């Protein structure tokens, strides 16, 4: 059978890719997606562990993570729409009103 470590390494790779995307994408929506990617990576680890330890908590937690992700997506995309409406651009580097 498949050792847990495979799953964990896979999830860490996905997480790292998510981090890279998080840093390097300029599009707000894509950055959101990279966050979702990281969440997914974590979920994978959760499920793998829950299976390895024969406990269900991991899967329960995955469910919660998914719920939170849904809520986050709803609000976040609302914000994205606002940004696009007000700044006529989805490039985060053009949304810099916080600049000193």
């Amino acid at each position, binding site marked *: 059978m*498949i050792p847990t470590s495979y799953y964990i390494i*896979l999830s*860490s790779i996905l997480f790292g890719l998510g981090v890279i995307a998080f840093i390097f994408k300029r599009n707000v929506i894509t950055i959101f997606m990279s966050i979702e990617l990281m969440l997914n990576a974590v979920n994978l680890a959760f499920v793998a562990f829950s299976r390895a330890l024969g406990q269900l908590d991991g899967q329960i937690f995955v469910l919660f993570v998914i719920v939170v992700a849904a809520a986050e997506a709803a609000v976040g995309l609302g914000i994205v729409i606002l940004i696009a409406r007000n700044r006529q651009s989805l490039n985060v580097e053009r949304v810099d009103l916080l600049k000193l």
Partner: protein
Amino acid sequence: MSAPLLVFFVLAALAVGGALNLILQKHPIHSALSLIVVMVSLAGLYLLMGAEFVAAVQIIVYGGAIMVLFVFVIMLLNAGVEEHTNFSKLAGIAGIPLALVVTGFIAAAITHANDTVLAAPQTGAVAATKDLSTMLFREFVYPFELTSFLILIAILGALVLAQREHS
């Protein structure tokens, strides 16, 4: 090479490829599609681990709702190819090494870890959906209710944000 391992590697390759593609693609829609690929392959991995319910939820919610929302928004805003600006020097300089370091860290942590759990093959009892629901509605009932509140608040927030202000 046993069949499950084969399936695992196929799905893993799909997932990693999708993630890479998410980064490499310039157009948000393509990124979204590759992310969907990642999610579906993850669902396959869950099935492989016997977590059928989670797999289904993964596809229904992530694939069927969240990503649809993304695609919907992309279509709505008619988002074009992402322009390649480089205003943030910090990201330009420290970006790649930082990400690599973080990933390396995680990997190192895993290798560091004692392998009692890690080496264990995935031969735990397959979680019956019934047990899952029992757990969810017995032990985790309060978090569950709280998440419902969270969703409600998220809905309201999305409404308030997205509606055009009638001034």
